[in-house]
């Protein structure tokens, strides 16, 4: 789960890291009041979960509370890459001398939590990583003991902080990021930029936190942080049913078990000239109820003209899938052609259950894709 900037900022603040003062507003009036409280110059930032907000006009400065209100009025409701801005962060606008970069990330390759730091922070950090990789430092935390103080200090001096006091502050922030990473079960905690002010102190201007979805069960309080505004209703419903669903623009619904096979099924549908309406993975060991929910979610998309069900049973049992399809057929209001390919564990039992249902059977993935594209075109 990806947090908004203001939510990440709140967590940083809770862990005692230096963030800029301010708050979040949903109306221009609230933005003005926040600007009054902060006093002086403020920055108004659109809270949408896409990159390139600044370039899209979603980040602006305001000198007075009146101007803050006017700027917030412009930004709220603005469309940035398909997302409507519903909240803005109003924060103290500060001056600084230099931008640095600091993050903690789960590194699949080393199977460790790795700290990344660079003296060349800011929006061009990925460009720096490509053109000047030596400017990016990486340091793995011990998987059992965690990040050590000396490592954080080493990182500080290695990115060129010379003043001892400043290096100590940097190390405190790095240790703080690591603690946030562990305590919140994040997969990424990033501060970019972390700025050096004229008096030599460091402050976090923008931050990102990504939480590990697999660990959310032990952080029930984070559920309230979830922003469902930008999420289609069907995706919401799918998540509640334990199904991974991503809506796409095509007209062929896909229900598959396993993410890899689901992606490969979409690849094959495209290869035969069709356009998938969604990615849907019913997961391992899905029961009849889950299959029925999945079919209903797919059919809630009015664009869907035909559905391809591709199940290769391992932990998922063909008979359970078949029961789910039959159950769903009894509940749905809209009839579209269903092409079903069922192989693997208990596939024969499944085929018997489906024998009387009005379905189009297929034995191979290629055949299934070809048939579903044909019937979708015929409708």
């Amino acid at each position, binding site marked *: 789960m990806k947090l908004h900037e203001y939510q990440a900022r709140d967590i940083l603040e809770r862990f005692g890291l230096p963030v800029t003062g301010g708050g979040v507003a949903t109306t221009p009036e609230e933005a003005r009041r926040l600007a009054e409280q902060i006093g002086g110059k403020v920055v108004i930032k659109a809270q949408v979960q896409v990159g390139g907000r600044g370039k899209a006009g979603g980040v602006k400065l305001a000198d007075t509370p009146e101007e803050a209100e006017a700027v917030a009025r412009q930004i709220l409701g603005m469309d940035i890459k398909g997302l409507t801005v519903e909240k803005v962060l109003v924060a103290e606008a500060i001056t600084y001398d230099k931008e640095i970069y600091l993050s903690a990330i789960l590194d699949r390759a080393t199977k460790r939590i790795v700290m990344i730091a660079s003296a060349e922070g800011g929006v061009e950090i990925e460009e720096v990583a490509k053109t000047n990789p030596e400017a990016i430092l990486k340091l793995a935390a011990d998987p059992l003991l965690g990040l050590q103080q000396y490592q954080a200090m080493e990182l500080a001096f290695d990115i060129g902080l010379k003043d001892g006091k400043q290096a100590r502050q940097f190390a405190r922030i790095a240790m703080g990021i690591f603690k946030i990473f562990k305590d919140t079960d994040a997969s990424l905690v990033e501060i970019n930029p972390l700025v050096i002010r004229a008096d030599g102190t460091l402050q976090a201007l923008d931050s990102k936190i990504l939480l590990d979805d697999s660990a959310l069960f032990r952080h029930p309080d984070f559920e309230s942080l979830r922003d469902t505004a930008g999420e289609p209703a069907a995706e919401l419903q799918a998540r509640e049913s334990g199904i991974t669903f991503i809506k796409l623009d095509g007209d062929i619904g896909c229900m598959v078990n396993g993410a890899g096979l689901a992606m490969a099924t979409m*690849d094959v549908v495209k290869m035969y000239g069709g356009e998938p309406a969604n990615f849907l993975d019913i997961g391992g060991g899905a029961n009849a109820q889950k299959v029925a929910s999945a079919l209903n979610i797919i059919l809630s998309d009015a664009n869907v003209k035909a559905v391809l069900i591709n199940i290769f049973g391992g932990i998922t049992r063909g008979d359970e899938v078949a029961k789910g399809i039959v159950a769903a057929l009894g509940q749905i209001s809209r009839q579209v052609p269903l092409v079903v390919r069922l192989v693997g564990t208990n596939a024969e039992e499944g085929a018997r259950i489906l024998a009387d249902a009005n379905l189009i059977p297929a034995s191979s993935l290629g055949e299934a894709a070809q048939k579903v594209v044909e019937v979708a075109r015929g409708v």
Partner: protein
Amino acid sequence: MSILVDKNTRLLVQGITGNEGTFHTRAMLAYGTNVVAGVTPGRGGQMAVDGKVPVFNTVREAVKATGANVSWIAVPAELNATDPILEAVDAGIPLIISLAEGIPANDMVATYEVVRRSGARLIGPNCPGLLTPGQAKVGIIPGHIATSGPVGVVSKSGTLTYEAVDALTRLGLGQSTIVGIGGDPIIGTSFIDVLELFQADDETKAIVLIGEIGGTAEQEAAAFIKANVSKPVVSFIAGQTAPPGKRMGHAGAIISGGEGTAQEKIAALEAVGVRVAKLPTDIAQLVKEQLG
């Protein structure tokens, strides 16, 4: 020959009395796998799976009584699935396979380190397991789709592997061993580890490597193949037409040096001479061409 599991496998199933444990143990027994013991705390002394497998309270007891040398863990992630992994390590089991889907990645960071320091091998979590056709099925890979032969299969994906294996079998190309390593962020055994084993295995004449978008394991595999693998490798990468996913901030790209797209992975593999199939159904044909 084969890799990791065979006729000498003495399998222990942790969580044997649960639904998944019972169902799949029954299938493993039917396949001919030597399942010697099960563990469910509090059920010690009972017989599980139609009275065929003795149940023990702890892994240590089970190992002592039966000489189990591989453990398959069917305990779901909700029940703290790193605990049975650590229990198996502590009891000295050298090969541990975890089915659990949804273990928090941070838990796996520490767990993997304990496994690594012990010298044991962990496969998964969130993986379908292993199958050496005609010898041993450890996990949930359907046995009937496989047949014995010269192709080693290693895959991140579960069901997509079945698709590829099924196609190989239909073309008359049997498999030495099929290894599902799982697609979680932190897994015990990587592509590279399995490639090394297949390269050293006399029976394996060609290798199928099935990857998917995300991470850089396929790029690392490509580098390893260039330096260490002389056998022909055929690959498929799922997600070639997937819309660009949600990005992991800047750090994801910095740490991996790329975005983990199918195109990047395919380019890396093709650059070292790996034949990459456009469709999963084409994998078998490419293997056939490679084996002449």
